[in-house]
């Protein structure tokens, strides 16, 4: 029998670090699986019908792991041995949607989700993201995610009146919030001057405008409505999801148009019954791999008027809307886990477990995740707790 809705019952994150050089990816995965088992008391299925975990959804990337079919290598650490496992090779926020689809379709009523990414393993993450492009045209031009993000930044900043100073504000605030987030990577506070004097990396993006190299892992337990009570008294319901893909060749698209995110948000909001995002969300987590993306994605998900990113920052929009209490991706999440880490923060906030950075009375939040450069694939997730009153 299929469930009508699904909830995230537990989340665990391995503190994000510049280089978790002392662990294999397998141990990084088990480090997050173990606390999920402890928090919920869930067991792995030993025989059919015993109620244990039988389906696992993982998130990883072959190039970053330098291993063909990267999920095969971690089967022992995620409990997939003798069970079912599927891999999502995109931002892990899409794995939540995949897990929920498994539950709503009746395929299974309990899913363990495990994502890992170790950016430090490669000599340069830019060499890995360069491989995302085609070999004849875009690779030889030297494109990687950061160079393409910089092109989008220039286009977007001109369109929305966002300046170097605005970007500095975003970074300063990210670090301030990250200081209160025990799993964040970049937790040292910085000043406006430090950001504005940080070296130009990919004009107009400075070094401090770009998320730092990060390693980490995240696990979640997701259950169908009927089983949620077995694992938690504080379920976080997945009430909406949508995604939308932009062109692969950057020359084909208007980099500042934001249409994939707008469309993904529209789909997610229709599913979640959200009509006025600027009012109905208590907080948001936006996948800002570079500082300009915070206001740009805020426009895309409807927290800020189209083309008004600069004014929105000046008017205290980030604070009023409680955007990125975790510090955001700018505080350091590996590329495959950007959106998944945003979703993890939503869960922690909605469970009231966020400690010093808790958004008071949080009932409903929105997160986005991006796959590819310049937000090529945008995914939007709406999560809420029982206080949201549905």
């Amino acid at each position, binding site marked *: 029998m299929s469930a009508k809705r699904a909830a995230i019952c537990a989340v665990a994150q391995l503190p994000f670090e510049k280089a978790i050089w*002392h662990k*294999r990816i397998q*141990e990084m995965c088990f480090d997050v699986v173990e606390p999920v088992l402890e928090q919920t008391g869930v067991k792995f299925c030993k025989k059919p019908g015993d109620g244990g975990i039988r389906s696992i959804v993982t998130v990883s990337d072959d*190039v970053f792991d*330098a291993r063909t079919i990267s999920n095969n290598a971690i089967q*022992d650490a995620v409990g997939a041995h*003798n069970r079912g496992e599927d891999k999502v090779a995109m931002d892990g926020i899409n794995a939540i949607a995949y897990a929920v689809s498994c539950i709503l379709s009746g395929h299974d009523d309990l899913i363990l989700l495990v994502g890992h990414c170790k950016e430090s*393993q490669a000599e340069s993450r830019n060499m890995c993201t360069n491989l995302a492009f085609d070999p004849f045209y875009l690779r030889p031009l030297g494109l990687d995610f950061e160079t393409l993000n910089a092109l989008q930044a220039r286009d977007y900043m001109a369109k929305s009146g966002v300046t170097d100073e605005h970007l500095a504000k975003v970074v300063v605030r990210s670090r301030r919030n990250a200081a209160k987030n025990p799993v964040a990577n970049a937790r040292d506070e910085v000043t406006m001057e430090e950001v504005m004097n940080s070296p130009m990396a990919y004009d107009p993006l400075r070094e401090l405008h770009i998320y730092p190299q990060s390693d980490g892992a995240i696990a979640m337990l997701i259950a169908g409505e009927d089983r949620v009570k077995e694992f938690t008294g504080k379920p976080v319901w997945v009430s909406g999801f949508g995604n939308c893909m932009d062109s692969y060749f950057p020359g084909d698209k208007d980099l500042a148009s934001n249409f994939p995110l707008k469309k993904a948000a529209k789909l997610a909001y229709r599913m979640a019954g959200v009509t006025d995002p600027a009012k109905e969300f208590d907080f948001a987590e936006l996948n800002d791999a570079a500082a300009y993306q915070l206001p740009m994605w805020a426009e895309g998900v409807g927290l800020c008027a189209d083309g008004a990113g600069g004014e929105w920052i000046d008017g205290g929009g980030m604070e009023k809307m409680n955007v990125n209490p975790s510090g955001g991706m700018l505080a350091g999440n590996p590329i495959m886990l950007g959106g998944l880490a945003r979703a993890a923060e939503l869960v922690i906030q909605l469970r009231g477990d966020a400690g010093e950075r808790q958004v008071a009375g949080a009932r409903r939040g929105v997160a986005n995740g991006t796959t590819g450069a310049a937000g090529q694939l945008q995914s939007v997730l709406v999560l809420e707790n029982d206080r949201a009153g549905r």
Partner: protein
Amino acid sequence: MAEYFGTTVEDIFRTQDSRFRPEGAEGVDVVVAYNISGAGGGRWKLTVKDGASKTEKLKDDDFGGFTAKMSADAETFVGVAVGQLDGAAMFTSGKLKGEGDMSVLMKLPMMFTKYMPPKKGITAADILATAVERFRPDMAGDLDITVGYKLSGEGGGEWTAVIKDGKCALEEGLRDGLTVTNIASASDYVDLMLGKLDPLVAIGAGRLQLKGDMETAQKLPKLFSKFIPPEASSGPELIVLKKTISVDMKYSTGRMMGKFLKGLKEKKILANKCPECGRRQVPPREICAACVCRAEEFVEVGPEGVITMIEYVYYASPDPLTGETRETPYGVAIILLDGCEGNETMWHLLKSDELDSFKRGDRIRPVWAEERTGNLFDIKYFEKVR
């Protein structure tokens, strides 16, 4: 001589005796006849006897007596020899035929190391042969000059490019009264043309000498478009771009694999043991997959053990780090080390000059490298316990 896959039938037979492995031919006494048809083909006869091999090219069709005979067209034969075509598939499709004692043909890969085609570079002659098509009349205008190339060493020779009336012709030999003469070794000339050697550096070091009219000499590079090696371009469309994808990686061993490798340095083989099911894993890993729990107890196993399965590899994958194909045949064994049971096995290589003698159930022991660095090949291979 007709070339296939960058080499010839003749080359393969010419080098065959030097590739003979007496250890792979113990007690063998056979005559193998080869009938290779098509361009570049011919008839050869191989005699293996008393631990020696003799390969001879026959002038006529008379093979005399033979133990086994192999027939193929030249392309198929070369393709199989260099590993570009699958021998078994060629047999099945009938492109490679055998008669007589077929088991002899199956043993040939054991008797000879694999043929490696010579790595071919671009020669000076290859480059000069393209001079006429690379000539740019628009840059030459009404120049009326003769340019000599005096290239010494292997692949060298003497050529003259005659440029007149907006046309370029290439002649062998040096004309009298050359406007400019280029003097260099053939290999330096090739490097110059491929952009591997800087012309100013070459002139400064005396490796490229220009004689005659210096004003004309300075114009020369502009008179020809750049030489592009043939593999870089192959026709106007449906181009195949050859690239190596390469990102340097830093793989962490973690605690378990790290301790295993350190153990090898100390001539110890370490396994880990699951606290729940008691199962051992070689090499040790953090998690017992069956119980999904941490398994951090180490136990020393082996070093001797028993072969449970053997595999001989005749067609090796290239080593991704070097691009070289390792020497075949080689043997891999699944080994049940002392102290382990069931599927608690370890894999490693078998001593290559004893490959014929290994069988399931044999007791084997590791042969340790003299200098051990904490690496899988601190065990060179396993050999029989005698």
